[in-house]
């Protein structure tokens, strides 16, 4: 790692050996560069261009200028689905983070049983999203589902999770919280990296449990918190499979009310692109999503810079 003593820039003419090394360096990086051009950079540019056309795959694209964006600004479903998606994200991300942190804090203190409980919390993550969607659609069933039966046991009259438009989203959030095992494990790893001496010093100083948590634990795991905030937000804004399975199957009896209440942005994008073959319009939708994700991520990074504590020199 320390052998880069020869300044590369100064060597105008490379020795045969260096030239051979350069050739191999190119060969090693080539797959990624090619993949980047074909599957990342290319599509980014292509989808920007497509968003200015009308394209149904079988006929050549027709240039329409900003027409798609104009249409998008007047599309009620765009706003509905964007609103739903942001609402879901705003519920899911903080809840998932808080519950995961609580579970990780408990896990850290149980000693030998930790492995067992960790497995219990992680197994839902292994379950295919399609199965999760099916399972929770049935668990959330208002009359016969396990969730309302459970609520009934404690005297609560459970809502119509899958049919009442205002309860559809909380039901989806409930389902999403089942699969928070990855976040738990990230927090647990971060908690186990906090040096014990810090707690010992805090105890000597007479800090209460809450103050230790607030002034030792939280700053020391702020990197992990920040990371999960960013990753979970980006993933939530692209929620697709579970909801598509629950509310968008080929069901004649599909209640329009619940599918509108469950209209997520990427589902709408998918429908526009692959069901109606509005590739141009869908590309405009994709770009809007990209911009929304960029803005939200940027704001999160900016805000987090004030809270995230990096050990050492950053």
């Amino acid at each position, binding site marked *: 790692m320390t052998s880069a003593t020869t300044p590369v820039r100064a060597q105008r003419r490379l020795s045969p050996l260096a030239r051979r090394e350069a050739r191999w*360096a190119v*060969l*090693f990086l080539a797959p990624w560069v090619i*993949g*980047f051009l074909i*599957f990342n950079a290319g*599509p980014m540019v*292509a*989808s920007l261009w*497509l968003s200015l056309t009308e394209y149904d795959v079988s006929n050549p694209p027709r240039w329409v200028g900003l027409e798609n964006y104009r249409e998008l600004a007047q599309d009620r479903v765009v706003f509905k689905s964007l609103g739903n998606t942001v609402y879901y994200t705003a519920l899911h991300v903080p809840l998932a983070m808080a519950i995961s942190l609580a*579970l990780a804090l*408990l896990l850290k*203190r*149980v*000693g*030998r*049983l930790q492995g067992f409980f960790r*497995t*219990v919390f*992680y*197994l839902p993550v*292994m379950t*295919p*999203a*399609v*199965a999760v969607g*099916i*399972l*929770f659609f*049935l668990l959330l*069933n208002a009359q016969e589902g*396990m969730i309302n039966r459970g609520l009934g046991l404690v005297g609560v009259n459970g809502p119509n999770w899958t049919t009442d438009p205002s309860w559809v989203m909380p039901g989806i959030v409930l389902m999403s919280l089942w699969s928070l095992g*990855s976040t738990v*494990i*990230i927090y647990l*790893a971060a908690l186990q990296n906090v040096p014990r001496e810090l707690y010992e010093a805090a105890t000597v100083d007479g800090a209460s449990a809450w103050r230790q948590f607030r002034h030792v634990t939280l700053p020391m795991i702020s990197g*992990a918190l920040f*990371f*999960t905030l*960013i990753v*979970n937000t*980006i*993933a939530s804004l*692209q*929620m*697709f*499979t579970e909801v*598509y*399975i629950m509310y968008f*199957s*080929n069901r004649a*009896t599909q209640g329009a009310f619940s599918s509108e209440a469950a209209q997520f942005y990427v589902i709408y994008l*998918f429908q526009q*692109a*692959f069901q109606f073959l509005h*590739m141009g319009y869908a590309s405009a939708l*994709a770009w809007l999503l990209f911009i929304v*994700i960029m803005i939200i*991520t940027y704001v999160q990074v900016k805000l987090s810079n004030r809270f995230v504590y*990096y050990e050492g020199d950053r």
Partner: protein
Amino acid sequence: MSTLVDGTTAVAVPPLEPAPAKPPRDGEPGWRRGLFLLALVAAAVIFTIPFIWLISASLRPREYVFAPGFLPVPFAPENYNEAWAAVPMVTWLFNSLLVGTAAAVAVTLSSAWVAFGFAYFRFPGRGFLFGLVLATMMLPFAVTMIPTYLIWNEAGLTDTQVPLWAGNLFGSAFYIFLLRQFMLSLPRELFEAARVDGASYPALFWRIAFPLIRPALLVVLVFEFKASWTDLIKPLIYLRNEQLFTLPRGLKVVLDRFGYGGEQQWEVVLAGSVIATVPMIILFFLAQRHFIEGIATTGRRG
């Protein structure tokens, strides 16, 4: 597409030993530990109930699917025969296995190859290029989805399984990042000694780096296999022919045919869900350490 490893910015050389279970902290009163344990048990029960219900309901006759209780009574294992007979489940299992293996092997080999390029060679612009790798982790799948489909369509490869794994031949940003971290932790003298002995660059990669980062390679392998096995959106976009479907796509067929699309035979749909899930549970128990360490590494930041 919503797995946690889709995008990260973690920085650290991750150790792959299982995290040592710490003994309870000194001076923690017994009753408090008991309380923590109780809370965990309660949470664990809540997390397990959906599984128990899934398995139990899949083993009950149709009219008992929603019956209260968690026991499969009356016992109706024939639900599985029905699911098995009604749809080409074996074909789908086999397809999932094939696609998952191709996706996992392709991404592991290519990402390790590229990671070696970033870890070993020094060249101007390397930092920038690696920054670009990290940047692609933030790129939402939904944004590149349409042009990527058009590329495969142009190549005449839609309605084949190729688009489900071939993109993996070019490495994947997160895995390149992860494997590079591991390669950087190998002592450079190892490679220099081999160079002096006349080893070629591919030999450095294949004979030295590759075997030494085996645990990390297994992390990539199992993660990608799981990601491929559970993915619905790619098969949904690319496949029409039922014979080519992977399990999640097939499970959607079962759902449409037996669930709310058709007969409301939820017991068959649930049996299908169990069939799609069990291989993942087995995989988890076989490779538990790699899943846990892979995830833990994801969020570790120095």
